[in-house]
């Protein structure tokens, strides 16, 4: 089993991606999510944003990738949630972060509560959320 620190306050190794159409188009292709606001700057502007912007569901996936990498193949995600607060616009570097906020034993499993979030260019929180994992 992977060695990891379970103290409250422990931060997970960061998952980082430079974002833009190369990521969004690949995600659109697997999720069949060909929505104009994610592909066309004019459609993004018409929706009140600066231009085309990334899918909320891709932030969701980045957060899952962050947590999966930390819990390893043996770990299990019990529940997961996030809000989609700000758009991920072209050229931003998105980091997925996580921090241990609680550790408890329940039903023979060690459950770890995490605070998770994605942040663009180190300043704009895009998708804050929570997760509970079983180790």
């Amino acid at each position: 089993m992977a060695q990891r620190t379970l103290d409250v306050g422990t931060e997970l190794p960061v998952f980082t991606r430079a974002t833009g159409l190369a990521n969004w188009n690949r995600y659109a292709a697997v999720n069949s999510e060909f929505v104009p606001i994610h592909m066309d700057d004019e459609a993004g502007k018409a929706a009140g944003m600066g231009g085309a912007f990334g899918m909320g569901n891709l932030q969701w996936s980045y957060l899952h990738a962050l947590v999966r990498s930390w819990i390893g193949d043996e770990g299990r995600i019990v529940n997961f949630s996030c809000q989609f607060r700000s758009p991920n616009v072209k050229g931003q570097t998105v980091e997925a972060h996580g921090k241990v906020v609680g550790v408890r034993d329940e039903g023979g499993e060690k459950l770890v509560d995490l605070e998770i979030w994605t942040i663009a260019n180190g300043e704009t929180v895009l998708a804050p959320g929570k997760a509970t994992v079983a180790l």
Partner: protein
Amino acid sequence: MTTETDAPKTNISPEMKAAVGREIGRKVSFPISESDIRRWAIAIYYPQEPPRLFWDAEYAKGTVHGGIVAPEEFNPFAWMTANGFERTSTTGTVDGDYLESSLGIKGPGLKFMLNGSLETDYGVRMRPGDVITSVMRLHSYTEREGRLGLMLFGTTEDTWTNQKGELVKKSRNMVIRY
């Protein structure tokens, strides 16, 4: 004195309120293939190599899963389901009343849609060969004034089970319309 202009505005009609709790639809996936899982993982982890659990059968066999599993958030319903081909817009636009159209009622006619939030309780993992059934219900409507005007929050609850009847996940998705 109340005038027509300061009367409370709402996008939630009595018909929409009455539809809360109703089933919006159910769909069945085609059997999940290793290729579906592999491509999903490649897209998510691009430009890095995805974890071997999602594409290397030999490696995956030696893990607690005993074989390849899908990433938890994998969507087996993309492109087409076993229910048949769903017609998509030919104008490149998205139906803002998609939720109400599915329920056979009149929607609020709002122009823009954003994904608001998502929460999921996970059950068993999805594997190659699995056939997933999704049953979606209308969970709630709320609304409030926002930066871009009166915002409508519609939440759906989606329950997925596999061919053995095991719970794969239960999700609540809130979509903002304005």
